[in-house]
């Protein structure tokens, strides 16, 4: 199939994002942007006793970046905050399921939520 990247579930998530919204009293939050293509993801995380209980995002951008944000926020629930800083790109990329190795520019889109998360937990904006 030609549109290997544009799987139905990605389009679906783009049109109907999961975990969308702001958390007013978030414990960790940060925004990551890719000015080259106009993608942005702002992540909000709430944790209790070091475990993530809620994760949401606000963003605009391409289907890959936004679908990725939906999947990523879901993935974070139940994870230990302490383990987040060590999370590798591969782990985040697996969520999007499609092979982006031939599209390094699209990989950047898929990793935008991870960038936001790293900023959020390191405390740097």
């Amino acid at each position, binding site marked *: 199939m*030609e*549109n290997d*990247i*544009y799987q139905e579930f990605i*389009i679906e998530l*783009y*049109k109907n994002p999961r975990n969308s919204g702001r958390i007013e009293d978030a414990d960790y939050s940060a925004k990551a942007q890719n*000015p*080259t*293509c*106009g*993608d*942005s993801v702002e992540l909000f995380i709430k944790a209790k006793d070091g475990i993530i209980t809620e994760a949401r995002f606000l963003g*605009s*951008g*391409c*289907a*890959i970046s936004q679908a990725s944000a939906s999947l990523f926020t879901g993935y974070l629930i139940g994870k230990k905050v302490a383990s987040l800083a060590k999370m590798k790109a591969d782990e985040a990329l697996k969520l999007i399921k499609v092979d982006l190795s031939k*599209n390094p520019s*699209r990989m950047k*889109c898929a990793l935008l939520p991870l960038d936001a998360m790293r900023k959020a937990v390191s405390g740097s904006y």
Partner: protein
Amino acid sequence: MFDAAKLRKDFPIFARKPGAGTDSKPLVYLDSAATSQRPKVVIDAMTSFYTEHNSNVHRGLYGIAEEATFRYEEVRKQVKRFINASDEREIIFTKNATEAANMVMRGWGEKNIRKGDRIVTTILEHHSNFVPWQQLARMKGAKLEIVGIDEEGMLDMADLERKTKGAKMLAFSAASNVLGTITDVEGICSIARDCGALSIVDGAQRVPSSKTDVSKMGCDLMFFSGHKMLAPFGAGVLYGREEILEDMDPFEYGSEMISSVTAERSEWSELPYKFESGTPDVAAVIGLGAAIGYLDRIGLDAIRAYEGSLISYMLDRLDKIEGLEILGPRSAKKRGALVSFTVAGIHPHDIAAILAEDGVCVRSGHHCAMPLHERLGIPASTRASVYLYNTKDEIDALSESLLKAKKVFS
């Protein structure tokens, strides 16, 4: 009869096997506003320079040194004729348009702009004709005024007149790289003159396919890049009226731009060399000469007319796509060789990616015009641009790919 199909054969990349489009598809190149494709004569001119005449310029006394210098200076004369400047001394070779703008900002701006002065630019500008002036204003404590646009995307001339009164300089584009808007360069330069403001024209999107006459335009300074008009990367041009350039300080210091150097002081070269420091990209300039020759042989008027017909056709086809909104003037007569647009429900980045799969090359993003996109209220747009080698079939391909993108996201 303009024969684009025949002209295409002059461009090796279109004949590349396998195709130069993504995944070896035939190349449907609709991004000439970013950079043009190059005809074989230009590529050959560079190769022949390196194989037969390669030498540094303005220095040696031996055969190939004289040849290289001669050929380099012949291109300067060509450019002077191409834009109808009054003298070769008014033609400065730069690396690109951006460097030219910065040369003016440093060489003219820094010595002539003072605290409280007003400098004017427009919301249409490419970052290269916006950021230098913004920074100049910041550095000097001057006020940056930005001329707005109307609903159609044309410059608000009343706003321009108002803001230019009492201003020290006015920097604007001859054609917008996003909206395509063609500005009334002569009229605007005349307003600047009446107001005693220096006029600087960004000709990047206009010079490649419109006959340029700087004497008629009445501008003080104008710049453009060779790589958008079939020439190699590395050769841009800054044109300036002689008295302005004489007054300007050098931008870069070093060899070539000096007439004498002692331990204590240096004296500058005469024009144009005062602004051409160090070793230039000689081959790129030679290539620029070949590009001008190629364009002159076809005739810029013919190219402009052909582009106009393609853009007209593109506007019509894009108009028929539901959910697609064309940005900028709807009439081909009011615009240059590009159309930017948005499609409801699909991010420009995804549009470009899906089109790329069909070999259709467009540009998505803010096109180095973030202030403009903010004014339009959109984060990004998709842009298709044409040049003398594009065809109606390619516009059909663009349209079909866009319909496909819509299907993917439906």
